[in-house]
C-alpha cells in the first residue's frame, strides 16, 4: 500500500521589513499599497549613483536579542533572530515540548554578513591584522544565522543554509517542506533575511545595470511589469515561517495560515545572470510545483510573482506564465510584493511567501503598485494599484523566485481545508 504523504502547514509568521515589524501591519500596508522605499542618507553621503532603497529604519536589536548577542551578530543575523522570535511567539509553540532532534532550521542566504565583512576589512586595511575582530568569521559566514537560531532556541535537528541568490529563501522553504513531508522532521523554522544596503553592494548591483536609478521618485522606482520599469530597488529585512506537520499542528490547536502543497526547482544552465530567453526553467519549475501538489494548472488562482521590476525578468516571467498556462494565464491574478518593499535578495522568497500566505488566509490580494503604463509584453492581470478581494475566494497560489545563476524555485500554497 502506498504510504500517504504527510501534510505540511504554516503555523507561525515573523516578518521585518521597511513596512514594519508586525505581520498584520505589514499585510495592511501591502493592501494599502504603501511604499517602504525612500532615499537612504548613507548612500547619498557615500556618493553612490543609486541612493534609494527599502530600509528597516527603527530596528532595535535589543528588543529581540540579549546584550551579548547584539554585538557579535551581523545585522542579517539580528533580523533573522528577531523574525524567528516573532514567528515562534506567533505559533504559540514551546520548542521545549518537542523532541529537539525532530525540529530543524533551514534558511536562505543571498550574501551573508557583508556589513561585518566590510567593517572588518576596512579596519584591516587601515589598522592592520591585529585590529581584526575575533568575531569577524562568525559574523560574516552565511550559515551563521541558521546556527544562531538553533543555538538560541535549543533546536538540535539540522540547521541548514541554502544559497541560491534571490531564490534562496524560497528554496529553503521548499527543502524544509520536503523534509517534513518525507518524515525526517516534524517542524522547521525556515525563511531568510538580508542586510546589504551598503554603498559597496549597491555599487556592485548598479554596475550590472540591475538597479532602478529613479532617485528622485523613490516610491515610484519599483514598478514591476510597468513599461517604464528600469531595474529593482534593494531592500533589507527578513521573514521566518514555522512549517509544521499537520497532525502535530492540529493536536496543539495551532493557527493554520495555509498549507504548503508543492515545490518545483531547477536550473536554467543558460547564462550566469540572464533568465532563459524562452523562460524554459521557470515554466518547468511552475509546472513541477503544481504537479507535486497534485493539482492542475486551472486550479491556480494567484501568482505572487518574482516581479523584480527589471526589464528582462518581468518580460520573461510573463512569457513563462503565458506559455505554461495558455488561456488560463489571463484569468490569473498576479502581483509583485517588490513594488512596495523592493527586493530583499536572500530574504525575498520568505517575505513574499508570508505575503502570499496572508493573502490566502485573509482572502485578499495586495496590488502591484506603480503599474501605470501598460507594456504590450506584460499584458496579464497584475492587480494594478488597488487590492482586490476575488468573489470566488483564493484557494491556490504560486510563489515564484528566480536567482542569479539560473536558480528557479516555485512553491504552491493552498488555503487550508481539512
Amino acid at each position, binding site marked *: 500500500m502506498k504510504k500517504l504523504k504527510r501534510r505540511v502547514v504554516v503555523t507561525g509568521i515573523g516578518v521585518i521589513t521597511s513596512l514594519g515589524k508586525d505581520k498584520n501591519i505589514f499585510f495592511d500596508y501591502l493592501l494599502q499599497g504603501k511604499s517602504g522605499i525612500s532615499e537612504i542618507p548613507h548612500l547619498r553621503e557615500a556618493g553612490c549613483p543609486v541612493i534609494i532603497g527599502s530600509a528597516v529604519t527603527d530596528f532595535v536589536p535589543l528588543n529581540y536579542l540579549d*546584550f*551579548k548577542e547584539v554585538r*557579535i551578530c551581523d545585522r542579517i543575523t539580528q533580523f533573522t533572530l528577531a523574525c524567528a522570535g516573532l514567528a515562534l511567539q506567533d505559533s504559540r509553540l514551546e520548542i521545549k515540548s518537542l523532541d529537539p532532534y525532530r525540529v530543524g532550521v533551514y534558511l536562505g542566504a543571498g550574501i551573508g554578513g557583508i556589513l561585518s565583512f566590510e567593517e572588518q576589512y576596512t579596519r584591516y586595511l587601515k589598522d592592520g591584522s591585529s585590529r581584526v*575582530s575575533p568575531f569577524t568569521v562568525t559574523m560574516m559566514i552565511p550559515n551563521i544565522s541558521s546556527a544562531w537560531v538553533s543555538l538560541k532556541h535549543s533546536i538540535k535537528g539540522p540547521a541548514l543554509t541554502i544559497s541560491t541568490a534571490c531564490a534562496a529563501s524560497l528554496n529553503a522553504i521548499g527543502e524544509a517542506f520536503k523534509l517534513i513531508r518525507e518524515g525526517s522532521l516534524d517542524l522547521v523554522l525556515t525563511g531568510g533575511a538580508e542586510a546589504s544596503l551598503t554603498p559597496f553592494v549597491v555599487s556592485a548591483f548598479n554596475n550590472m545595470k540591475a538597479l532602478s536609478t529613479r532617485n528622485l521618485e523613490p516610491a515610484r522606482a519599483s514598478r514591476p511589469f510597468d513599461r517604464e520599469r528600469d531595474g529593482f530597488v534593494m531592500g533589507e529585512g527578513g521573514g521566518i515561517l514555522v512549517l509544521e506537520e499537520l497532525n502535530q499542528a492540529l493536536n496543539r490547536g495551532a493557527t493554520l495560515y495555509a498549507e504548503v502543497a508543492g515545490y518545483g526547482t531547477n536550473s536554467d544552465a543558460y547564462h550566469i545572470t540572464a533568465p532563459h530567453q524562452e523562460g524554459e526553467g521557470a515554466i518547468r519549475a511552475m509546472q513541477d510545483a503544481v504537479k507535486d501538489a497534485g493539482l492542475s494548472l486551472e486550479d491556480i488562482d494567484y501568482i505572487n510573482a518574482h516581479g523584480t521590476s527589471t526589464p528582462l525578468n518581468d518580460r520573461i516571467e510573463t512569457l513563462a506564465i503565458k506559455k505554461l498556462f495558455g488561456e488560463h494565464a489571463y484569468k490569473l491574478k498576479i502581483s509583485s510584493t517588490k513594488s512596495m518593499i523592493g527586493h530583499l535578495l536572500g530574504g525575498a522568497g520568505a517575505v513574499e511567501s508570508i505575503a502570499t500566505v496572508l493573502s490566502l488566509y485573509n482572502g485578499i490580494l495586495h496590488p502591484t503598485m506603480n503599474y501605470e503604463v501598460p507594456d504590450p509584453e506584460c499584458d496579464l492581470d497584475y492587480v494594478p494599484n488597488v487590492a482586490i478581494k476575488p468573489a470566488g475566494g483564493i484557494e491556490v497560489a504560486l510563489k515564484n523566485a528566480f536567482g542569479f545563476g539560473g536558480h528557479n524555485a516555485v512553491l504552491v500554497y493552498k488555503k487550508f481545508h481539512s
Partner: protein
Amino acid sequence: MERIEIFNAVKQVVIERLGVSEDQVVEEAEFVKDLGADSLYLVDIVMELEEKFKVRVEDSDFEKLKTIKNAVDYIFQKLG
C-alpha cells in the same frame, strides 16, 4: 596613570562588551567563570584594552589574564 584609572577603564570595557552590571566587575572576578566571557570575548576585550592604553598584549600572556586584577596589573606594569 594611576592604577584606579586603569581599573575603571577596564571595568568600562567589560561592562560594554559583556553586558554585566557594575557591581559584578570586582578585582577578583574571573572573565570566563564570573563574567560570562569565552575565549573570543576575551580576545575582543583585550584588543579593546590594547587600543585604549596603546599597549601590546603578547599572545603568550593571554592565559595570565584570568581575572580583572590580572588585567589591571598587567597594563599597570606595561605602562610603568
